[in-house]
């Protein structure tokens, strides 16, 4: 009695310790078992045009999710397929179930509970034509569990409620189990058995018809997403569902295998596993037959190889490239070997060493897989298989202790060692290799050295080489594993522990664990919803929400999509390359945030958190990207991502984790913070007009002067600025790839391929982009202002020795020359000879000062939020880096050869010329409620000099002899005056069949109204055969004549 009392007291003390003293710990764990947390996504900010019209926004849409568990349990097709799978012990697919649904349902309903019970005891069972034989080992076939599944599915088919289940138990206990399921249900509900059959058959038929209708609607929804034709919709849907089922079951089998063995099944070659390891206990749990099991093993291997190629290899390559970039272009062989070896280190060791980097492979002791084999199988004590220690070269003691030849220095020896690793053969003595093999190893090492030290090494090349090397090592590993398992299997056969097929049995305790976990794993994996359609037709949403019971497994969820609102009639986003796009969070971003994500996961798991932890969790919830989250992938979406991106919220429910659970007890919520709206300076109307003009240029009215090839595939840009530097329109073409442009992509020669490349050309210089005569006004202004050039002094533009007009070595665009011209005439007629002579007067420093004064070679200001990815801009800072020769100076004054710029840079400089102030270009007017102030600085030039140059540019358009005169740019035609300078920059590429003809970029830069500048226009025509007067000028004219321009000007008081 004393002992009993003492024992009871001991139990009470321990109970007190666990329940009271350790309560917080266990309450925390308990809460985690029933805790559901959900990140509440923010709404990404809108992008608006200057007038507040929405360009892009996040739009609430419906998404259709599919949950296989619900489909399996509640949809007649899923019920039939899985009931039949349980019966036949093979994965009966949905097509087969659909084909035989009527018959199989009838057969299932005609089963009797008693027959099922007898079957669990090993007796035979007949179900229609199917005859399941008797067995002496019903447990091995999991008959009890399969019978339970069958009862469940039959009950579901009949629509059992809780009362019916209890009636079934009673019926079994009362000896009524010999009646069929249909008969029993008929009795309970006052029907005949035939009625029951008919009712269930009707329900199954209706479900199949519903499924076909659903398939059609889903196919329509997917066709809108552009990835599925409407034909054979039902088959496609079944294929999709079947694939999801296979993936779910494969994932479950992977998890169970890993539970039993400690490593994923894909780590072994499928044929090795199939030959030596009895995985049937896992297959039995999933009701798989041999074929399905083999399919799983093959798929698991493919997944592992894919993972290795998509993750391990790129990571390895990135690490080596990063090491090279960080160490003056050299990668040590030691590092390469360490990183390679680290990929074969046991995961537990690697995890324990996370963040600490790999250690020397020669000191590594625990390698992948082998330690996991210990205790894995149902075997009595055994010696380590002979091959076990020799799977990889990294394990070979001779290689680990290898002494390099005396003549090799340390670096050469390390590369040699790498070569030995690649050329290693099991049980070959590396210390006494035949000369040919030794030479081969040295050569391979040197190849690696050359590859990794090559300055032109591309990531793809390195990845391919690493992949090949890993393939070689994997082959050794698989060979060794196969031999080891062969030995173990022979041992198991000798000990009588092998299966009849001679396979190794997994240890019983491991199988116990698998058995315990199987239900949870399957439930967990099959309960996960996956999206099958986004933004479907409302009919589909209506159907699934109003008649959910007819479409088990499918559900509607609210989702969000980045919706382009400002679109062209063809649906393409206006200013697509400038606005950019959003992307799903990629693996690299998730990887970069893994530490924060791990910390967040840890905190989410904690039942009780300190205040500091709660604050940290809030911070992390908002920082860490969610797998579904989007980020700005380019353009303004990328550049302004920090402003547009909001911060996620979090909703946590401490209650039941089961989705169907009604017992929620509490809620902890952190509201999301939506992203800021961004208001651009772009005017949507002007942007549409600009893109339309660039996409569909009419060209010179005179067919003989047209460059039809350019008109057919225009490449260029158009920039429209407000006088204070606001970017009103920034269009570039091509703005979309099209089948017609595909031929250009294939063509040889950069300028042809450029016709197929979509890029933001207003801000970039794809290759060589001289400004041509568009640069002359700035040269003229500098000459007038800085060294008192006499504007009235006339210089001759006369023929040179070769008969063509020019100056020294620079020809004028006008073959017969301009004669004697002063500055105004030279600007009006764009005389190259005059400016070549003027250019000789400039020093290098003066050119550089001129460029700086007008902002060439520097950022325009559109990236006012700093250096961020997304918005591309070439500043062309390399211009005039080298010392100029006299010839260079002559060319520089004509904007040739050494002077380059972007359309945006030229537009900014032109705005300075027109207004006397150099603006910082502004692309963003406001972020949220915060205005982005315009900024500018005055030009340091005398007003009269500015006025003289401006007048000359007015004359370019409006006076005879002007290069843009007679091009319908006059006030009478446009309704406002226009001042401009044309430019044609020869590229030195001859035009076939045209004597002295060269290909050129052409420009127009000007402002309007000429007398009161409100806007600045720059047109850039990339790579044409005609001069600006026949190309860029006509594009400008086409744009300026648009009603949108006049409307804008009217709104801004520039024209009545």
């Amino acid at each position, binding site marked *: *009695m004393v002992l*009993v*009392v003492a*024992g*009871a007291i*001991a*139990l*009470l003390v*321990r*109970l*007190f310790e*666990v*329940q*009271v003293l*350790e*309560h917080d*710990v*266990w*309450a925390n*764990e*308990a*809460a985690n*078992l*029933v805790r559901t947390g959900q990140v509440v996504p923010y709404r990404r900010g809108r992008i608006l045009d200057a007038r507040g019209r929405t360009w892009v926004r996040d739009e609430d849409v419906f998404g259709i999710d599919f949950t296989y568990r619900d489909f399996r349990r509640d949809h007649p097709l899923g019920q039939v397929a899985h009931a039949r799978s349980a019966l036949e012990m093979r994965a009966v697919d949905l097509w087969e179930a659909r084909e035989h649904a009527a018959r199989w349902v009838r057969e299932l309903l005609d089963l009797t509970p008693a027959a099922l019970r007898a079957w669990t*005891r090993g007796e035979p069972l007949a179900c229609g034509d199917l005859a399941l034989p008797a067995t002496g*080992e*019903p*447990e*091995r076939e999991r008959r*009890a569990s399969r019978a*339970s599944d069958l009862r*469940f599915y039959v009950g579901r088919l009949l629509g059992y409620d*809780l009362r019916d*289940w*209890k009636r079934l*138990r*009673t019926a079994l*206990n009362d000896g009524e189990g010999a009646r069929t399921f249909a008969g029993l249900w008929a009795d309970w509900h006052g029907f005949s058995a035939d009625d029951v059959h008919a009712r269930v058959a009707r329900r199954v038929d209706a479900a199949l018809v519903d499924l076909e209708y659903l398939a059609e609607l889903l196919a329509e929804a997917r066709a809108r997403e552009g990835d599925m034709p409407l034909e054979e919709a039902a088959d496609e849907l079944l294929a999709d569902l079947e694939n999801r089922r296979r993936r779910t079951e494969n994932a479950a089998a992977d998890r169970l295998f890993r539970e039993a063995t400690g490593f994923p099944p894909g780590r072994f070659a499928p044929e090795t596993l199939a030959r030596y390891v009895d995985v049937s206990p896992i297959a039995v749990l999933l009701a798989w037959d041999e074929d399905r099991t083999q399919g799983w093993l093959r798929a698991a291997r493919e997944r592992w190889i894919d993972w290795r190629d998509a993750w391990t290899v790129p990571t390895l390559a990135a690490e080596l490239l990063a090491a090279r970039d960080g160490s003056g272009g050299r990668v040590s062989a030691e590092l390469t070997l360490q990183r390679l070896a680290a990929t074969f280190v046991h995961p537990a060791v690697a995890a324990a060493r996370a963040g600490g980097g790999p250690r020397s492979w020669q000191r590594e002791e625990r390698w992948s897989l082998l330690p996991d084999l210990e*205790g894995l199988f149902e075997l009595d004590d055994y010696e380590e298989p002979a091959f076990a220690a020799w799977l990889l070269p990294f394990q070979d003691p001779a290689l680990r202790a290898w002494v390099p030849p005396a003549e090799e220095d340390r670096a050469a020896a390390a590369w040699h060692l790498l070569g030995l690793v690649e050329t290693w053969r099991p049980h070959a003595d590396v210390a006494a290799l035949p000369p040919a093999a030794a030479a081969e190893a040295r050569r391979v090492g040197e190849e690696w050295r050359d590859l990794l030290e090559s300055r032109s090494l591309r990531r793809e090349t390195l990845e391919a080489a690493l992949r090949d090397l890993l393939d070689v090592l994997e082959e050794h590993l698989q060979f060794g594993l196969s031999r080891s398992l062969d030995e173990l299997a022979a041992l198991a056969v000798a000990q009588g522990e092998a299966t009849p097929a001679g396979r190794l049995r997994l*240890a*019983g*305790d491991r*199988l*116990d*664990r698998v*058995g*315990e*976990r199987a239900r*949870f794993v399957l439930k967990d994996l099959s309960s996960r919803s996956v999206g099958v359609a986004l933004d479907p037709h409302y009919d589909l949403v209506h159907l699934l929400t109003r008649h959910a019971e007819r479409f088990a497994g499918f559900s509607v969820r609210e989702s969000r999509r980045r919706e382009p609102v400002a679109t062209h009639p063809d649906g393409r986003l206006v200013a697509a390359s400038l606005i950019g796009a959003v992307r799903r969070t990629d693996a690299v971003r998730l990887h970069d945030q893994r530490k924060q994500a791990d910390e967040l996961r840890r905190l989410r798991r904690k039942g009780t958190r300190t205040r500091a932890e709660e604050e940290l969790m809030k911070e992390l919830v908002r920082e860490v990207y969610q797998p579904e989250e989007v980020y700005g992938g380019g353009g303004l979406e990328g550049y302004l991502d920090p402003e547009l991106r909001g911060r996620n919220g979090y909703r946590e429910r401490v209650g*039941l*984790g*089961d989705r*169907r*659970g*009604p*017992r929620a007890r509490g809620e902890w919520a952190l509201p999301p913070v939506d992203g800021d709206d961004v208001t651009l300076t772009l005017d949507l109307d002007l942007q549409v007009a600009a893109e339309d003009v660039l996409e569909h240029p009419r060209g010179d009215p005179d067919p003989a002067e047209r460059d039809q090839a350019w008109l057919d595939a225009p490449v260029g840009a158009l920039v429209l600025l407000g006088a204070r530097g606001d970017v009103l329109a920034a269009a570039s073409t091509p703005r979309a790839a099209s089948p017609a442009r595909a031929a250009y992509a294939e063509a040889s020669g950069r300028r042809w391929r450029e016709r197929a490349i979509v890029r933001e050309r207003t801000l970039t210089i794809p290759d060589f982009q001289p400004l041509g005569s568009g640069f002359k006004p700035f040269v003229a202004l500098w000459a007038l202002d800085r060294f008192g050039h006499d504007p009235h002094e006339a210089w001759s533009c006369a023929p040179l020795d070769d008969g063509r007009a020019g100056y020294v070595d620079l020809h004028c665009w006008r073959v017969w020359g301009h004669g004697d011209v002063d500055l105004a005439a030279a600007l009006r007629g764009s005389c190259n000879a005059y400016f070549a002579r003027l250019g000789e007067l400039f020093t290098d420093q003066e050119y550089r000062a001129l460029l700086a004064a007008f902002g060439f070679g520097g950022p325009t200001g559109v990236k006012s939020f700093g250096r961020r990815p997304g918005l591309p801009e070439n500043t062309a800072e390399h211009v005039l880096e080298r010392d100029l020769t006299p010839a260079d100076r002559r060319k520089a004054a004509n904007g040739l050869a050494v002077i380059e710029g972007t359309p945006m840079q030229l537009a900014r400089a032109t705005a300075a010329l027109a207004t006397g102030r150099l603006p910082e270009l502004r692309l963003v007017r406001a972020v949220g409620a915060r205005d982005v102030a315009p900024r500018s600085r005055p030009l340091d030039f005398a007003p009269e000099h500015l006025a003289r140059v401006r007048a000359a540019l007015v004359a370019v358009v409006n006076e005879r002899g002007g290069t843009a005169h007679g091009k319908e740019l006059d006030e009478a035609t446009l309704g406002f005056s226009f001042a401009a300078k044309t430019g044609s920059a020869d590229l030195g590429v001859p035009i076939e069949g045209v004597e002295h003809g060269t290909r050129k970029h052409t420009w127009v830069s000007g402002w309007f109204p000429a007398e009161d500048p409100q806007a600045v226009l720059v047109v850039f025509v990339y790579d044409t055969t005609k001069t600006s007067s026949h190309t860029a000028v006509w594009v400008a004219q086409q744009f300026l004549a648009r009603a949108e321009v006049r409307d804008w000007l009217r709104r801004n008081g520039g024209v009545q």
Partner: protein
Amino acid sequence: MRRARYEPTAGGGGGGSGPLGRVFSARQVRWMQVDWHVLVLALILLSVGLVFLRAMDEADAVFQRSEVDFGSHLGKLVVAAPALVLGLLIRPRWLRRNAYLLYGACLVLLMLVPFIGQERNNARRWIQLPVGFDLQPSELAKLGVILALARVLYRSRLARPADWVGPLAIALAPMGMVALQPDLGTALTIAPISLGMLWLAGARARVLVLGMTAGAVLAFSAWHFEWVKSYQLQRVDTWIHSWEPAELIEGRNGPAFHSYHARTAIGNGAWTGTGLGRGVANEAGHLPERSSDSIFAVVAEEGGFLGAGGLIVLYALLIVLLLGSASTLRERFSRLVVGGVALYFAAHFFVNVGVNLGLLPMTGLTLPLLSTGGSSLLVTFGALGLALGLAAHREPSLDRDAFRL
């Protein structure tokens, strides 16, 4: 010198007529002497079990599971309840005369298990019956051992070393057979019952301590030299490494899965518990065997320290009352059987609660009167009936030897 055997006749009421009358007798039972305290306590514990099992069944219905079947449990109760009555009415003399026969029947059933038993979870322990549950002969064997030990110790005073041979053989034979099933947990529960009965029968304490020490050394050697199956070793390792909460939590997804969920449920209960059916064990449904081996964890979680502490007190009281009842009996065989039944309850109680609290390595053992399980209920009711009946029967005895409590 052979002592004269006193065999009382049917005096004082007689034993009834016919073969059945020689086995059972209602008239021989002195109903006023039935230990109603024990019966009431047992019924209270049974009711506690029913209440919690009902709550589990309801939770399963809510969460669409079908792991616990309250109706089935009631059915088993109905099947097992006659065992209580039969135990109550059985005549001690018949029982004593046929103790070896019953023990032998248990051994036969155990021997049949490898041939006709059903395999579940890699163990072959059950024989299918057509009465609503499957029989687990190892459970019956415990009762068989109690009867056989009582029978052999009825004559033997364990004074000579040779006196130990019979009792040890009786205890070790079923232990070995059960261990081979394999069911080491059940096999080891026979050990404390046997040792306890030996002590109750007058074995010297130092001999028992010596035996227990040898047993401990044997157990340690079995663990240290890995003489037992790997999963059994792993259970011990897991137990050793799961004392601290942090270690147990660390291993929750491995071999400590069951221990982790049991400890989590118990620890979650705090002082007053989560409320009936509202524990994490019932809601999340991860706790294995929550209606049988782990029912204490569910009670502790939903009843809290007060509820679970009360259960421990009640159970201890039941054992003490049974031992007290035994101590009042003058007839040695009956006294040993009732004492053995008390030890049966004590062994199950301490092992089951100890396992759930992490005081002992994980092993599957029911908590009699509370857990589901047909064999367990049958043996529990039978044992309880015997304890009550033997204490209330009128058959006198001249035994006077010491009985230590």
